[in-house]
């Protein structure tokens, strides 16, 4: 980049006199790392933002609190199992996630709007698009960051359970296997929840609306699934496989049911599980449709900005 001669002259004069009063404008000759680097940078920044890093102290409170609340019971459970010399954890890895799923939903509801609505609200989105990244790069980075943030959130308690059990002398093989089941469940929750949460957050510049809508969709849907399940059980108290189809009504029961069926974790008919091979196919297909559909809708949402 060529500078006008006067600018260069200033610079030389300053250097000659040995005193720098005002170093003039310096051009940048270094590398420009382009689109994929910029996308990665946006991913890292968004992941940090999901935990309030690089933002005000206040915004760190909720994500850190949820992380703590989700991790602490794992410590207690592991401690109990060791003290009671149990052969097994009282709560299995995937079950831990479904038992505390409310906190995962709270994290999603609070932080998905941080990633999406803030950029819309403060009209930062056009600034991103005036730089090398494309609209799909933007969605990809945000989605990746949300999935990673959720994954981190759910991996912490699972690791606590696993490391605790191994150190406490619980069976290695069984724990390793079930820890991996837990990770698969966490990945499914992370991907499905992130897709739904970000889509809702991207549809409104108002953070409050985003929070309420995400909570609403996920909590209400699981309540409805619960009601339908109980209605299907009937008065006899006998749980029919057909009642398990109620799980398709809610994202959380969907993942829970699929994981329990695939890994054979449903010990009694009351445990949520996908009914048979058909159930596995339907549940998996529904998750895939929800994820791909939400992602596609997000892409088309940002195509218009």
């Amino acid at each position, binding site marked *: *980049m*060529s*500078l*006008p001669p*006067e*600018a260069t002259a200033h610079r030389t004069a300053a250097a000659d006199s040995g005193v720098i009063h005002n170093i*003039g*404008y*310096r*051009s*940048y000759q*270094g*590398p*420009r*790392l*382009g*689109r994929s*680097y*910029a996308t990665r*940078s*946006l991913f890292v*920044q968004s992941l940090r933002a999901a935990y309030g890093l*690089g*933002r*005000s102290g206040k*915004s760190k409170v909720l994500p850190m609190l949820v992380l703590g609340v989700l991790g602490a019971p794992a410590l207690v459970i592991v401690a109990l199992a060791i003290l009671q010399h149990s052969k097994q954890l009282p709560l299995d890895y995937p079950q831990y996630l479904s038992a505390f799923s409310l906190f995962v939903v709270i994290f999603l509801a609070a932080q998905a709007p941080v990633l999406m609505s*803030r*950029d819309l609200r*403060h*009209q*930062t989105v*056009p*600034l*991103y*698009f*005036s*730089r*090398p*990244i*494309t609209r799909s790069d933007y969605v990809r980075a945000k989605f990746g960051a949300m999935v990673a943030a959720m994954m981190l959130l759910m991996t912490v308690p699972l690791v606590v359970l696993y490391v605790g059990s191994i150190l406490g002398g619980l069976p290695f093989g069984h724990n390793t296997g079930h820890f991996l089941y837990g990770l698969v469940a966490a990945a499914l929750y992370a991907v499905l929840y992130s897709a739904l949460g970000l889509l809702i957050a991207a549809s409104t510049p108002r953070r409050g609306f985003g929070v309420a809508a995400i909570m609403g969709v996920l909590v209400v849907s699981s309540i409805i699934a619960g009601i339908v399940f109980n209605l299907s059980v009937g008065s006899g108290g006998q749980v029919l496989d057909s009642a398990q189809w109620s799980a398709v009504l809610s994202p959380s029961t969907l993942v829970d049911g699929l994981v329990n069926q695939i890994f054979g974790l449903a010990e009694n008919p009351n445990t949520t599980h996908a009914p048979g091979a058909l159930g596995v196919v339907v549940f998996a297909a529904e998750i895939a449709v929800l994820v791909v559909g939400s992602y596609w809708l997000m892409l088309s949402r940002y195509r218009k900005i």
Partner: protein
Amino acid sequence: MNVSTVIKTDGLTKRFPRVTALDQLTVEVQPGVVGLVGANGAGKSTLIKILLGLSPATSGTGQVLGLDIATEGPAIRERVGYMPEHDCLPPDVSATEFVVHMARMAGLPAAAARERTADTLRHVGLYEERYRPMGGYSTGMKQRVKLAQALVHDPQLVLLDEPTNGLDPVGRDDMLALIRRVYSDFGISVLVTTHLLGELERTCDHLVVIDGGRLLRSSSTASFTEMTQLLAVEVTDHPTDLAFDADAAVRARLTEAGLSVVPDGSRVLLVEIRDEDTYDTVRDTVADLGLGLVRLEQRRHRVAEIFTSDAPDDATRPDEARPEATGPEATRTDEAREAGGAHDVAAS
């Protein structure tokens, strides 16, 4: 970099379902500070979006820094800075944090991004306050941060959309001086849009005027104003002789003195200012005739008058009123019209 033409468009047209935002726009912009002037809705922001490669043109072609807008959008956006018209700063983040992030988004490695951010914020005049959250900034400070994020990756061209919006007169002057420096000291070409025409006369080397998506005029700022130094003169009637045509007499005497005089309206004469003596000549002439001087004011053709020369609401205006030629030789549609008065569309 040795690009002689910064922006070049050829027959650029953008149609939305209901409106035609740009209509056969052919323009060429050389390095320097270029003003893009137009009323609200004239197509300025649409043009910027197309130049950034963010929105495809319906027809026509264009190049920015020699790169094709249709196919090389990412490469253009790496070399171009953009300052939007609207507010775009998250309030809970500091200026430093924000500009570093934007530098990285432009492809700068982390260390370079931090260094360039410190430099750039200093150049735009932001010091200790850069560590505070931007929510507490004044409009002037926010505009500086917006400019800084457009400059931080050392682009070859910056597109500034209404950078003086919302600033008080002092802030506006500061911003205009800063824009001038972006080219003169930093060597970065500038395309600045505004609907306030007056302020660009001082800042820009070249003006491009668009209206209703069409090019009205593209020429150097000097050619807009050079022949427009005029003196408006209004005199009283003769105190005793009512039949005496005061205007005609003044006009005759001044023409005799070698000045060009044109009547403007019923009572005003427009006298070309040749040098400082013109004022004395006018004063002496009027005094000699025994008349009173009602008005003696300097008047310039404002760039605003370009707007009054074409009815903006007319979609069927004749083709010759729409010059397609570019550069300093562009057809001047308003040449024949003398000063239409201090009729500044933009300032109102």
